[in-house]
């Protein structure tokens, strides 16, 4: 022993608090590195683990992206909430004018288009190809129609419903119809799908915890001997836990990054078909990917899951290892 230990028999007080903190920082750096090496040392099987986690994350995240897109699509669809007012057949032109101006006064209305019976018949004759048959008719069977476009602030299903009821009350209105009623149904469907996506996310999040936990369990078992030795020389469970927590964190980090790449690649792959489809509807709609804050959230979430998974697993399994 050295000369500065006066008896050699004094109890160890360890280091000062400041030095301990400094050492702790160094240790963390060291163990973060060791945690990465643990993954890089065995690239193939660890890549598989990371890939599985990434896919488990990508499924609910991708679904969420599609739902968000679907929602913004159904909300942004101008024609979505157009309302058709079919007026009574026996109205005079002045009465039709009156109804039209009444509708126009509604503050929730963006625009109103009036289609007179004659014009409606013309359009129909042109489009249907029954022009000859129609010219045989002695009276026009079509009513005057008002095509109402609500303001975008009043185009939600609930607001449309209210408008619909208001228009029904108007004198001279025979029938009111919300065009593209399917949009409303789509909206409801989307909400249902969103619930399903949450459930899927929860289930797959749990799966990620299990995957990480199990991987960490194996790695604890592989290092059983090392853990025994470290315990023998006085390591606390917290000390032993740390590198494993880092490994879990890095799994989450790499998986989150890979998940992001998978999502972006899929979206790029979807871009062209979506543009084609949107073109058919004279729309310039394009799929929205992950913005910066969503990407950060994804990564943070995935790192958190990795950390949590290893934390849940490591304590239990380290406790089971006692030096012999």
């Amino acid at each position, binding site marked *: 022993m050295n000369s500065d230990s006066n008896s050699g028999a004094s109890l160890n007080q360890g*280091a000062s608090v400041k030095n301990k903190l400094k050492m702790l920082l160094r240790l963390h750096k060291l163990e973060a590195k060791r945690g990465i090496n643990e993954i890089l040392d065995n690239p193939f099987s660890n890549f598989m683990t990371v890939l599985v986690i990434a896919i488990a994350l990508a499924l609910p995240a991708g679904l969420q992206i599609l739902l968000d897109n679907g929602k913004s699509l159904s909300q942004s669809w101008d024609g979505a909430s157009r309302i058709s007012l079919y007026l009574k057949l026996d109205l005079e032109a002045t009465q039709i004018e009156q109804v039209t101006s009444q509708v126009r006064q509604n503050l929730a209305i963006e625009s109103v288009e009036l289609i007179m019976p004659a014009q409606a018949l013309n359009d129909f004759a042109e489009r249907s190809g029954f022009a000859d048959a129609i010219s045989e008719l002695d009276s026009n069977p079509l009513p005057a129609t008002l095509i109402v476009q609500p303001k975008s602030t009043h185009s939600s299903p609930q607001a449309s419903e209210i408008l619909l009821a208001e228009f029904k009350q108007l004198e001279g209105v025979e029938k009111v119809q919300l065009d593209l009623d399917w949009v409303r149904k789509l909206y409801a469907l989307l909400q249902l799908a969103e619930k399903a996506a949450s459930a899927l996310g929860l289930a797959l999040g749990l799966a990620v915890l299990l995957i990480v936990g199990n991987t960490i369990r194996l790695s604890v078992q592989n290092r059983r001997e090392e853990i025994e030795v470290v315990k023998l020389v006085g390591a606390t469970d917290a000390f032993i836990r740390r590198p494993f927590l880092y490994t879990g964190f890095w799994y989450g980090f790499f998986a989150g990054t890979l998940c992001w790449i998978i999502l972006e690649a899929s979206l790029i792959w979807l871009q062209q078909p979506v543009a084609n489809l949107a073109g058919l509807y004279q729309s310039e709609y394009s799929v929205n990917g992950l913005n910066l804050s969503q990407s950060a959230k994804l990564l943070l979430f995935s790192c958190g899951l990795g950390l949590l998974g290893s934390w849940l697993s490591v304590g239990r399994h380290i406790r089971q290892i006692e030096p012999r």
Partner: protein
Amino acid sequence: MIQFAQVSKRYPNGQDALRNVDLEIASGEMAFLTGHSGAGKSTMLKLICLMERATSGQVIINGKNLNKVKRRKIPAVRRDIGMIFQDHRLLFDRSVFDNVALPLMIAGYDHREIGRRVRAALDKVGLLSKEKNTPIMLSGGEQQRVGIARAVVNKPPLLLADEPTGNLDPELSAEIMKLFEQFNQVGVSLLIASHDLSLLAKMHYRTLVMKEGRLVQDQTDQMFEDEALKVDTMSETSDHE
């Protein structure tokens, strides 16, 4: 330093490894523990470093009753005890330096302090030039000395060694013993389990002889009956009790 009062240890399989052992080893003392294979030497050491718990009786180390030490506090107890094993228990994926540094890292020492202490310990056991090697590149005797450096690097007041020379030839064994004597000279207490009688005969330290879990001789100082010991240690166990 070490106090055993009516200590018994029965393993879960029903094996009685220690039976009513009373023992006191003073601070700064160096003692040997001997006896036939299965006599309970390792068990004794394991109770001291809390690898096992006594079934009954009190083990008191440094004034601390180990019965009262909770699981969480075990690491703190072990930090004050240097342990040396027959199979060295080194980490083969790390350098000699890192192996010896382990107790200091755990205790949270500053890295300059770690460097200083590790080199002092390696110097002491004559392995300063091998700090960058991994243990695999070393001979058995060198590996054991790395184990010793690791045990003393934290300057514990007590060293325990379980068959430290078990795998070594007499010359290397004598070297290791000389190291132990040097630690003892600066005040470290040592308890060394060994069944190597020829080695003990040369040493003239207090020798505790165990037989079937009992302490049957406590030879303070000087030569013990060579013949009696031979009969004790060689005769197979079994029969009575």
